[in-house]
């Protein structure tokens, strides 16, 4: 709290200072002093204009991020499948920790319920992890990790249980937007940065720049987001921005050979405003196929027949799908593609087949899978505050997606892992049912979790409430909320004008028409001065006191309907201490022996001369007992 200052209040104070410009009197604003004290290390060293520019730039960036944040594109969860056929131990790679800057390699045993084995291998990085990508080449897994200014690559050797080793780290001067790992050659990756550069990164030979172009490819789009992936040819990379995809040949030096793979436009039947969100190489399904998702549709492309999509499907997701995962189907089987959005937690499964011998087509129906926020209703009831905590935790955006096919004898199922931005990994199993429909159906809809799930859930919940007790601050990044900057009233659109307003406007108009001057029209009656609360009457039977009380509070007539008022309206006695008649000890601080109705006394109370007599007469009537 001591280090937080509300910007609204600060702004108000600065405005007040502005209006006091030239005023001699020193005015001290403690909040401003505190602000300058807090910012003393940097505030005066920086030219204010420059600082303002920087702040402005940052705010524009933050605002754009609030609308659509493409930095987590690709997702930061990877599954390294078991090394040997028939083995059951795979590995999940994901970020964790308060700042999501710890990289974990957790061995997971695939059983009825996937189970973590041992404690994870852990690496601390000096930046928030944005993306984790993995590929297996020659039996070894290569894991690429992207944070804003650093990209690193780890190798997980082929032996089961072997420790991952970091291979190399590169630093970029502008934030990297993409990191993909080659499925063809060991230790090869592709990196894109916000400056529009695309690099082929080989652990042994270093970086090779394939393109450097801050402009977008097909039409002007302001986003600096770039993406690149591998293709059927290990030396040819696909390169994407929001307007489309191109293929670049690494054998030809910069800016050389390329061909267009996908263009947002007429050929693909795109809508207005449609933009590429995530391209993905589908090499495991078919060597020359690529997936492209936009905020409206999903396309399957073949690099041999560029620009004309083989498949198009409008996904109708509420948020653009930032994460995708392919589970190849093998000969004669469907390929399964999972699409996931970040903030809405939407998760879709679609299946397609074909591409080489037969035409590419969707098989069965796309299916919606459960989001982890929706499982709350199936969980045991909690105390309200816990429920709220749980709800908050479970509604964190999705940060990563992975899946694996688990074959357990004749039974086959698809395990889908999801990582939330709060650092939790969720898993759901889709079982294949041959009897009813060829498409797998989710068995997650069971009303209550099994005993094993329940146990694990309880453990997690316990840890969660403990952790939250210790650190009430949330682990995920603070988002800039506009409510902090502007009060609700600032943002409110002016409501219907009050009748007074319209009346005023009408009169103004009238005055303008007549060419007259604007009179001070019937202004609302000036607020009556705040009357002091009458003393609590002790004797309820005393009619005088009650009448006087009524007179003080202004509803005189109600109390004495028979008596005509002496002056129009309630008596305009200055609202000072009530000067009560002698029957009651006066509550005024005035000495008792002094006549409260003496001219001097009344004058010092500011009562005009002409009224003094009236007042005296009036009060003397009441002094006599009724």
């Amino acid at each position, binding site marked *: 709290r001591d280090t937080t200052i509300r910007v609204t209040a600060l702004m108000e104070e600065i405005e007040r200072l502005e209006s006091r410009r030239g005023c001699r009197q020193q005015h001290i604003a403690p909040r401003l002093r505190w602000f300058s004290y807090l910012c003393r290390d940097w505030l005066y060293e920086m030219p204010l204009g420059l600082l303002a520019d920087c702040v402005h730039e940052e705010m524009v960036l933050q605002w754009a991020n609030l609308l659509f944040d493409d930095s987590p594109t690709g997702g930061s969860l990877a599954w390294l499948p078991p090394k040997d056929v028939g083995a059951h131990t795979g590995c999940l790679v994901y970020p964790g920790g308060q700042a999501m800057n710890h990289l974990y390699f957790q061995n997971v045993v695939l059983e009825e319920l996937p189970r973590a084995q041992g404690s994870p291998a852990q690496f601390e990085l000096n930046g928030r992890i944005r993306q984790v990508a993995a590929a297996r080449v*020659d*039996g070894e897994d290569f894991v690429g990790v992207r944070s804003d200014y650093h990209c690193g690559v780890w190798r997980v050797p082929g032996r089961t249980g072997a420790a991952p080793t970091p291979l190399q780290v590169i630093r970029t001067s502008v934030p990297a937007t993409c990191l993909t790992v080659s*499925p*063809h*050659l*060991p230790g090869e990756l592709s990196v894109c940065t916000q400056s529009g550069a695309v690099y082929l990164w080989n652990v042994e*030979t270093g970086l090779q720049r394939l393109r450097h172009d801050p402009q977008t490819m097909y039409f002007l789009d302001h986003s600096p987001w770039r993406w690149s992936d591998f293709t*059927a*040819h*290990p*030396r040819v990379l696909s390169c994407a921005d929001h307007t489309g995809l191109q293929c670049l040949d690494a*054998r030809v030096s910069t800016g050389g050979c390329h061909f267009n793979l996908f263009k947002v436009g007429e*050929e693909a039947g795109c*809508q*207005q405003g449609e933009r590429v969100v995530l391209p993905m190489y589908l*090499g495991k399904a078919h*060597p*020359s196929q690529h997936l492209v998702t936009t905020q409206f549709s999903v396309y399957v492309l073949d690099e*041999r*027949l*560029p*620009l*004309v999509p083989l498949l198009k499907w409008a996904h*109708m997701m*509420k948020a653009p799908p930032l994460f995708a995962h392919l589970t190849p189907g093998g000969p004669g089987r469907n390929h399964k593609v999972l699409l996931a959005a970040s903030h809405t937690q939407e998760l*879709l499964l679609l299946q397609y087949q074909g591409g080489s011998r037969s035409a590419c087509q969707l098989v069965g*129906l*796309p*299916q*919606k899978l459960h989001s982890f926020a929706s499982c709350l209703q199936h969980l045991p009831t909690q105390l309200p505050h816990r429920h709220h905590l749980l709800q908050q935790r479970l509604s964190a955006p999705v940060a990563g997606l992975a899946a694996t096919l688990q074959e357990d004898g004749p039974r086959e199922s698809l395990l889908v892992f999801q990582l939330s931005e709060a650092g939790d990994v969720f898993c759901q199993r889709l079982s294949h049912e041959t009897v009813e429909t060829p498409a797998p159906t989710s068995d997650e809809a069971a009303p209550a979790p099994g005993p094993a799930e329940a146990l694990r859930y309880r453990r997690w919940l316990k840890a969660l409430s403990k952790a939250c007790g210790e650190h009430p601050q949330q682990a995920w990044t603070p988002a800039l909320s506009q409510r902090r900057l502007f009060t609700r009233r600032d943002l409110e659109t002016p409501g219907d004008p009050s009748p007074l307003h319209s009346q005023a406007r009408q009169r103004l108009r009238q005055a303008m028409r007549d060419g007259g001057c604007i009179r001070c029209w019937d202004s609302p009656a000036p607020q009556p001065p705040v009357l002091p609360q009458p003393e609590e009457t002790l004797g309820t039977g005393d009619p005088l006191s009650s009448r006087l009380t009524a007179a003080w509070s202004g509803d005189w007539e109600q109390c004495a309907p028979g008596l005509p008022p002496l002056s129009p309206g309630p008596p305009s006695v200055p609202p000072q201490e009530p000067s009560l008649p002698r029957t009651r000890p006066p509550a005024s601080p005035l000495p008792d022996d002094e006549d409260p109705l003496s001219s001097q006394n009344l004058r010092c109370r500011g009562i005009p001369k002409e009224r003094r007599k009236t007042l005296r007469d009036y009060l003397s009537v009441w002094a006599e007992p009724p």
Partner: protein
Amino acid sequence: SHEHKLKFSKSKEVCLSFIQDAMLQKQWKRAAEFLTFYAESLEKDFSTAHVGPSEMIWRIGSEILYHHSCSSIKEFNSFIQQMKTLGIRRYLKVCLEHAFHLLCNGLIDEAYENLSLAESWRFGEETAIQDKEMKLIQAYRGLLDYHSWSKQKNILLEHGHDGFEDFSVEQEMHSCFRKAAVNLKEIIKIPGVWDIFVKCYVDLLEFYGDHNEACQVLNEYAYNSKFPANPNAHVYLYQFLKRHGESKKSLISVLKILHDTVPSHELMIDFNIMLQKSKKRKKRRLGLEVIFAALDYVGWKENVKAWNCLARQVKQIVISEKYLDWIKQEWNSRKDWWPAFHFSRYLAKQNWQENESLSHEKALVAGILLGKDCQYFKYVLRQGCKAQVKRFRILKKFVNKHNSVYLRIS
């Protein structure tokens, strides 16, 4: 009022998301119920969205009826009839999709009738889009004509052997041909990917002996620059020329263009074999280039035929000791990544376990290109000798004899 409009559009959106939710979870009944509510949105359609409510209702409705357990084709037809009148601009699109739906249910005659009906429909001034959609409708009708033509052709061919001739069948077949040909010819004039239409049209023309027209159509389809680059167009042309015994030269020229656009095409093996046999030096040189380029692609990694082609040509060149510079040139751009891509120890082990002939061909190429100390060659040779397979001993002798080549090309 404005507020009312806002509320209305909001509830419309919510309703749509409910429908979508139900559909994605295969709850067709629920989806159908929500759709009946959504139909109200037609009343005040203020939207300027890309897909308006009436189109939504059409698309969602036909999807629901397609999957709903209690729906019948009759119901579907009546729904579509309503949809046709709902959006005049979409009329042709709806007709086409209706025909597809009928075809999926095996109702070919109904689909044909539907398409014919749509063809006679006219509305206002013909727009470019309408014109294109009309062409599509005609083309699909042509396709159905082609279908009945080929059915009748098969009947005639079967009975032809019995010496029995049915004139009415023959008459009808010819009339089907005429109807199909007229419509198919129209659509393939428009730039686009029309593989199925082109194939059917060429089949018709070939049957009636109009080879010139067929050749012209295929050439146009392959080489017209207004059409999207389509490797299939070159494949159809190649297959046609091959069927009609055209000269090697023209076949090679077609495949050369295919090689330039798609170096990873399956036909590259045929192309390489054709070129290897050639007497011309230049063509043999091209053959080496073609097979090297094909093996660059990940889809060819385990193709025994391709490795066999490369091994054979490399062997030839090494034995003749001429043109070693061809290999050198090809190898130059690949020596930094082929060893890891093709000749790693891991792959040697895997190839040996899965496919012995593949590992033999690859070992030969590896031995020549990387020398006898290359990991791949060493591993495969050791395993081969252990298993006492004769061809591996010959391989060892050959590579040892020509080990100097590796020094000369690198």
